[in-house]
């Protein structure tokens, strides 16, 4: 089958995944070709891959203000989340079996919590307000003597709201409770300082900041012991076994370093792109923004457009050369729309019309103009054929 030509395509779904940066690819290639040695082997040939991992570890640590020994490479955000939550729960089971998280976590977190509930743990899901900010007072009130872990995401993947991580971290530390944060959407996009934030564990996924897919990081603070998820050859100091994805690790580190260096400039640029987007989209009748108005990821713009079903909107946008996403029920194969929008109190019928446009380093002004040309047409077209759009008849 012929491959479609995507050269003029506007990719605006960077919260789903990103294009690998040239820098990251360049950094990876030697480890996909010349330096293929197993990092655990004795001979000098393997020093190259071992050194590459050790440099990558130092680079990632520097970005997070962590120690290299606190960086564990994993297969992605999902593994990091599972490893942190299951590992901490198990390691502290003797101390207690109560865990706290929020209602708007990613499924990598929520489904893991559900599984732990089946295995005898109890979990409190702290609510969020209408802008997606976690209720810190409710979180504090949820603490019990047997609470061993608090897990709150740093920034939400659907509405972009950034959580008060430093505040929660300080609280957790003062109570002697482990604190994990899913920073998969945050890393490379907003500044992170594990020390200042009093974080014990933090998850990252390479492909969310122009790094490769299938590689992630779990930051694990020195002195914190968790039960490993993967047992075996003892790689990553016994904390995560399995032959290392050398090229992936190198690519993740290169992309994170690059994103960090470009962050200040990129943040300003993305914010101005989003501003322009907002101006255009909010002119559509019955459209409004979701998430926190200011305390949000710079490149993630999220909306609900009433009297629109998200999947149809996304597919029409696709036909016009634009990739965006929706939390509509139809898009997930479940009947309920996004649990995040629901948790924020957005009614089902409105949530079906959610639209997420997430921008990255490769998006341009022209992309925004194209979206602003096509989106209103798609909305009009769908509403015209709707039995419920007040404008009909």
């Amino acid at each position, binding site marked *: 089958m012929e491959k479609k030509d995507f050269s003029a395509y506007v990719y605006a779904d960077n*919260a*789903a*995944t990103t294009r690998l940066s040239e820098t990251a690819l360049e950094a990876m290639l030697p480890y996909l070709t010349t330096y293929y040695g197993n990092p655990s082997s004795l001979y000098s040939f393997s020093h190259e891959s071992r050194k590459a991992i050790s440099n990558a570890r130092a680079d990632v640590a520097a970005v997070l203000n962590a120690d290299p020994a606190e960086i564990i490479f994993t297969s992605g955000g999902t593994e990091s989340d599972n490893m942190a939550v299951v590992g901490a729960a198990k390691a502290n089971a003797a101390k207690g079996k109560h865990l706290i998280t929020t209602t708007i976590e*990613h*499924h990598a977190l929520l489904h893991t919590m559900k599984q732990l509930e089946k295995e005898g743990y109890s979990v409190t899901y702290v609510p969020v307000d209408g802008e997606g900010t976690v209720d810190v007072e409710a979180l504090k009130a949820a603490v019990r003597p047997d609470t061993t872990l608090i897990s709150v995401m740093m920034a939400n*993947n659907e509405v972009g709201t950034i959580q008060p991580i430093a505040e929660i971290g300080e609280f957790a530390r003062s109570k002697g409770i482990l604190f994990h944060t899913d920073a998969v959407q945050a890393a490379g996009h907003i500044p992170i300082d594990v020390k200042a934030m009093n974080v014990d564990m933090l998850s990252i996924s390479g492909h969310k900041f122009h790094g490769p897919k299938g590689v992630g990081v779990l930051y694990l603070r020195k002195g914190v012991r968790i039960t490993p998820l993967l047992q075996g050859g003892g790689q990553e100091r016994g904390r995560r076994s399995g032959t290392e994805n050398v090229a992936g690790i190198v690519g993740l580190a290169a992309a994170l370093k690059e994103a960090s260096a470009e962050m200040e400039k990129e943040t300003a640029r993305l914010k101005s792109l989003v501003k322009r987007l907002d101006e255009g989209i909010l002119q559509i009748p019955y459209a409004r923004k979701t998430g926190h108005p200011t305390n949000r990821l710079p490149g993630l713009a999220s909306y609900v457009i009433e*009297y629109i*079903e998200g*999947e*149809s909107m996304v*597919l*029409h946008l696709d*036909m016009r050369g634009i990739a965006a*996403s929706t939390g*509509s*029920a*139809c*898009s*997930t*194969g*479940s*009947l309920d*729309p996004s649990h995040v929008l629901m948790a924020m109190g957005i*009614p*089902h*019928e409105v949530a*079906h019309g959610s639209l997420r446009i997430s921008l990255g380093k490769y998006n341009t002004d022209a992309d925004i103009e194209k979206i602003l040309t096509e989106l209103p047409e798609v909305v009009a077209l*769908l509403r015209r*054929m*709707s*039995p*419920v*759009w007040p404008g*009909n*008849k």
Partner: protein
Amino acid sequence: MYSEKVMDHFMHPRNVGVIEDANGVGQVGNMKCGDIMKIYLKIENDVIVDVKFQTFGCAAAVATSSMATELIKGKSVQDALKLTNTAVVEALDELPPVKMHCSVLAEEAVKSALADYYRRQGIDPVPIVGCAGDCDVCHTDHGHGEENE
């Protein structure tokens, strides 16, 4: 994800619109579920001489509505009553498992419009058409599909 036929009917839906002087109109689904289909029938001498639809919903909802109208256009009421969701799916080549409820909804929308046609003629539709539109498809469990990010 979708077959070419589904995408064709989604992008170029047949029979979209309203029949002002319809003599059978049915609407099923609701906003909460994310799918609403409304079908307008113009029936003369027990033959469906015109059919139009309006749909709010996903691509499968639009495509099944479109295909359902195509399948009953020009048919007798008796034949239209025999329309099944399977026939709609087959005519569209295939539908992802999580979208099967859309074809059910399309079948029900047709039946609901036919019921309305009977009702307008003073005939109780229930013995003829059966349950139409109240089958609560929104609360069926559709299994666990793959999710984004």
